[in-house]
């Protein structure tokens, strides 16, 4: 039996996980830095590594930028005391962080991040990529609900309930907002109707965001809600629920929730870029200036990452700009505004496509 | 004008008519009117000299026509007042019928302001280091009537600041305002004329006569009556500021005079004892020897554990054990003339519950000084008589008890606060008997006691004493006792309850008085709440024939006491 493909796949997976985890870790740093800047502070700028920190100018600069902060954060998570409250349901209490973390890491499997010689750079280029992402990422909410329920105390419980309600409310709008993009990207009867690679390729001239701004907006808002980011961070809501579903968690278990949340953001940003911002396409009208071979693959990947980072930055920028919604406002926005809007958008686009296909061409 | 009744006359203070006893002066009259007449040299128990001039006031008499004796009326038909053109001192002005005075007129205020200014010219203004600060008349009147700043630019007079007038009194001459209260006290009350002024004018200085010093047993009263910080107590000097002291009414246990005192304490520590005015007993004085009686309260050899045969235990266990021993019979009870009336009453109940073979008291005698120390140095022998604990006056030695123990007639001794080794019972005798001892400090009796109840000193508990006049006076808790020690009445009550389960142990003196006032005819109607501050005279005629040893002292004459008692009994 030939083990080589398996080994290569494993290696790719490990690389992918490392990169995404790294990005997630630095997203935490970015969050703190941006929070600081927006509030007129410096943000973390004290952590020094033994040898790099003492390099004359560079070391100091890196320290001021807080580059080593994630290392300290990670070590702190690992070495902190891990108290387990006496009143929790132990099995689910320990299960919950894993359930929250695994879906966040799994969705990255089908996310394409570059193109080399016409072949997508992705761990698993499956036809139903988008469906897979929607299906798996929704599982993440089980972790939150489990955490809230197993903690067996008021605030986590409220947090869990809010998370589930919010997830259901916005999942619909999100799903419906994606469909127009796929409708436009694929010819009727296409076999790769839900493939993300196809969507990117269909945007080589015009990014979907310019063609479908309403869909993009609905998707963006729903994405904020799905990732529990401010202004939709109902499950955490520090001022109301202490810290929501993970109130009773500490140490690395809290760390898993935390990293899972940021992984979610990174992957979500990736999906947004793939669907509406042209993936690794250079600019609208300039589809693919990258050279062939591995250099092209690398450059397209970097370009894609740059776009993802911009979206992640936007996530944080929004967080430190907008206040939190009231819970009933969140519900009203989801059910009474976004859902009808997404439905109407879908119907309108379907009609437009029908018109376009049958009469205009 | 109001109708004068008995010896009362009508005077007008700031146009307000009040009735005052005839013969008092205008300082007292204004005090009765609820107004303040500032004064330094005047003291209600001393003669009037009128040298401070602080009590200047305006006064006038209703005018009458000299020829006809008819009152001269003004336009409103009121009798005209002939105000004197110059101010007069209130302390030397007797209250006359119909006299009008002004205590707050422009002239009076100016007078006070001027007097204050002269007094403060040479005053060192060292209030931060002065022990009198906080209870200093000069401070009070300076803030009430003073000008607030000094116009005096010359050098202040300098006088000696640390003169020892005697073993207990220190003089700071700069602060002295030459009121001469101390001189008059020594002359008139202590009858030990040692103080006087020397030199003239602003160089006048208080000093002892050559070869004499202020060392009589009443010298510290000069410190109390000094209106400024000139005379200070060497014992209390620089120890604590007076504004920290919480003052609690207490009774001096030095002798059967029952001097009323105030215990000044802060945070559970007594710093000084001062006399409390009671015109029926001690006026405003007390002997120096009574002021140091608080020292044992803080000593290291206090008993602090309830003990059975040397083992620490709880008060309930100790009471149970003591009741076991007592119920075997052949008990002798030794009470104390230093215990309060309440304790003696409970002890009597215990004595009758165990059918005591004998009940005795230990007498303490000394020489009376004819003023505030009597020959009987037990504060409460009469309480023991009234509660029925004893019928005869006590002896100094318990020779009868000693024989009883030796012959085996007495097997158990219950002693309430008396160190039996000091009154004729040797240690070997005590070891032969079962001993139950209530005491405050470690001593030989406590060492051999089978059951030991630690008790509280007079400053740590409440109760009452009956002094030589049969005057019932209460004292109150000034400082908390050692941790875990119950008041004596509590221990005694528990013991009584163990002996006789039907009696409910009293929780406070109110309970005991309820029982005493119904059980003792002389105490009928008395309760702790209705004992006045000056004490309550109890009818002691039943014991008038007993040979009390007290001689004549302030407000007490055994001869008149006896003859009065005879009259009542007739």
């Amino acid at each position, binding site marked *: 039996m030939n083990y080589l493909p398996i080994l290569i796949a494993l290696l790719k997976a490990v690389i992918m996980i490392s990169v995404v985890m790294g990005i997630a870790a630095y997203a935490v740093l970015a969050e703190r830095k*941006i929070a*600081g*800047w*927006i*509030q*007129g*502070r*410096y943000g973390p700028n004290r952590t020094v590594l033994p040898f790099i920190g003492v390099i004359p100018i560079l070391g100091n600069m890196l320290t001021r930028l807080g580059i080593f902060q994630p290392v300290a954060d990670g070590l702190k998570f690992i070495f902190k005391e891990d108290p387990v409250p006496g009143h929790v349901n132990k099995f689910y209490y320990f299960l919950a962080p894993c359930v929250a973390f695994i879906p966040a890491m799994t969705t990255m499997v089908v996310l394409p991040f570059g193109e080399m010689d016409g072949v997508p750079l992705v761990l698993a280029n499956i036809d139903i990529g988008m469906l897979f992402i929607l299906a798996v990422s929704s599982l993440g909410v089980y972790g939150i609900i489990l955490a809230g329920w197993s903690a067996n105390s008021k605030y986590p419980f409220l947090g869990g309930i809010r998370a589930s309600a919010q997830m259901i409310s916005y999942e619909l709008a999100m799903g419906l907002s994606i469909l127009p993009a796929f409708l436009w990207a694929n010819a009727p009867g296409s076999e790769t109707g839900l493939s993300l690679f196809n969507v990117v390729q269909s945007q080589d001239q015009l990014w979907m965001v310019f063609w479908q701004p309403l869909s993009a907006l609905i998707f963006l808002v729903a994405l904020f809600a799905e990732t529990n980011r401010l202004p939709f961070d109902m499950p955490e809501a520090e001022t109301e629920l202490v810290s929501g579903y993970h109130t009773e968690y500490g140490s690395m278990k809290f760390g898993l929730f935390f990293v899972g949340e940021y992984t979610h953001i990174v992957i979500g940003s990736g999906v947004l870029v793939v669907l509406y911002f042209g993936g690794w396409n250079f600019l609208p009208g300039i589809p693919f200036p990258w050279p062939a071979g591995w250099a092209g693959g690398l450059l397209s990947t970097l370009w894609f990452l740059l776009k993802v980072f911009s979206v992640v930055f936007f996530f944080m*920028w*929004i967080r*430190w*700009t*907008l206040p939190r919604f009231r819970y009933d406002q969140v519900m009203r926005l989801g059910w009474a505004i976004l859902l009808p809007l997404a439905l109407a958008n879908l119907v309108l686009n379907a009609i437009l496509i029908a018109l376009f296909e049958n009469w205009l061409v | 004008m109001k109708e004068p009744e008995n010896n009362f006359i009508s005077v007008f203070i700031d146009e307000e008519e009040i009735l005052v006893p005839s013969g008092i002066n205008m300082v007292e009259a204004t005090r009765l009117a609820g107004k303040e007449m500032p004064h330094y040299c005047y003291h209600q128990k001393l003669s009037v000299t009128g040298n401070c001039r602080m009590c200047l006031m305006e006064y006038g008499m209703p005018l009458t026509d000299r020829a006809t004796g008819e009152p001269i009326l003004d336009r409103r038909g009121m009798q005209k007042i002939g105000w004197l053109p110059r101010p007069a001192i209130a302390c030397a002005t007797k209250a006359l019928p119909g006299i009008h005075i002004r205590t707050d007129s422009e002239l009076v205020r100016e007078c006070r302001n001027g007097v204050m200014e002269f007094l403060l010219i040479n005053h*060192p203004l*060292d*209030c*931060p*280091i002065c022990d009198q*600060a906080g209870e200093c008349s000069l401070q009070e009147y300076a803030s009430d009537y003073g000008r607030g700043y000094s116009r005096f630019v010359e*050098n*202040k*007079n*300098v*006088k*000696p*600041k*640390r003169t020892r007038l005697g073993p207990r009194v220190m003089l700071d001459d700069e602060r002295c305002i030459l009121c001469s209260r101390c001189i008059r006290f020594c002359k008139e009350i202590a009858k030990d004329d040692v103080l006087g002024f020397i030199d003239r004018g602003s*160089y006048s200085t208080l000093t002892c006569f050559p070869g004499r010093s202020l060392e009589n047993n009443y010298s510290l009263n000069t410190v109390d009556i000094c209106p400024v910080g000139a005379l200070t107590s060497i014992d209390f*000097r*620089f*120890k*604590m*500021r007076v*504004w*920290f002291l919480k003052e609690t009414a207490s009774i001096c246990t030095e002798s059967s005079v029952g001097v009323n005192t105030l215990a000044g304490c802060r945070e559970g520590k007594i710093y000084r004892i001062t006399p409390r005015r009671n015109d029926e007993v001690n006026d405003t004085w007390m002997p120096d020897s009574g002021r140091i009686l608080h020292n044992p309260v803080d000593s290291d050899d206090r008993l602090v554990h309830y003990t059975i045969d040397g083992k620490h235990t709880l008060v309930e266990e100790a009471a149970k054990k003591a009741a076991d021993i007592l119920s075997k019979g052949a008990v002798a009870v030794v009470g104390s003339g230093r215990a309060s009336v309440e304790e003696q009453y409970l002890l009597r109940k215990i004595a009758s519950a165990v059918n005591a073979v004998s009940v005795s008291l230990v007498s303490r005698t000394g020489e009376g000084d004819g003023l505030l120390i009597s020959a009987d140095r037990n504060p409460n022998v009469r309480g023991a008589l009234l509660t029925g604990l004893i019928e005869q006056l006590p002896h100094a030695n318990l020779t009868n008890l000693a024989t009883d123990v030796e012959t085996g007639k007495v097997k158990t001794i219950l002693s309430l606060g008396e160190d039996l080794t000091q009154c004729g019972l040797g240690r070997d005798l005590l070891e032969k008997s079962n001993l139950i001892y209530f005491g405050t400090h470690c001593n030989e009796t406590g060492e051999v006691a089978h059951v030991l109840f630690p008790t509280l000193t007079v400053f740590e508990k409440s109760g009452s004493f009956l002094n030589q006049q049969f005057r019932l006076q209460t004292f109150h808790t000034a400082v908390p006792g050692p941790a875990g020690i119950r008041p004596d009445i509590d221990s005694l009550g528990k013991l009584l309850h163990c002996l006789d389960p039907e009696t409910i142990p009293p929780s406070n003196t109110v309970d005991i008085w309820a029982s005493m006032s119904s059980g003792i005819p002389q105490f009928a109607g008395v309760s702790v709440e209705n004992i006045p501050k000056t004490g309550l005279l109890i009818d002691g005629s039943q014991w008038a024939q007993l040979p009390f040893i007290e001689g004549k002292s302030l407000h007490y004459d055994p001869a008149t006491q006896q003859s009065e008692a005879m009259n009542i009994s007739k």
Partner: protein
Amino acid sequence: MAFKQLARKPLNWAERTYLPQIIMGLKITFWNMLKKKVTLEYPDVRPVIPNGYRGIPTLVKDPKGREKCVSCQLCEFVCPPKAIRIQPGEIPEDSENAHVEKAPKEFDIDMLRCIYCGFCQEVCPEEAIFLQKVFSLSGYSREEMVFPKAKLYELGGTYPDQHYKWEKKRSAAEENQANGHG
């Protein structure tokens, strides 16, 4: 009626989406990011302490090295959290400052209790206690944070006032002595 109730202006279509407002907010926060930071990097950079700041209370000596406190205990009396404990004492008669008579034997300030109200400074008749600019104190035990007299003088140092109240008193006494009085 003292006030007039105004009807709120109805939102127009664009305002009802809230998007313009969100964009305006984003603009503000974006420019905030580029502004100068207001953070004072504390242990490296110390704030400028204004005059009249109420830091830790300390005892001071006068320029000639005399301890100014005469243990009048007014600060102990006025201290709201009862942080000050004084045991007064007498200055021995052979001392240079014997004419002051009184000085604290012990003077403790419990810095854990102190609330920096400054009443002690205000009440002091001898200008012997001053609140310094020191605002951060730390220690390993409660006992350590009860500052004894020696430490209070060490922290307080000298206060450069020129009153010399007690010096004047002594010189007046000496002058009088020379003139044959007293």
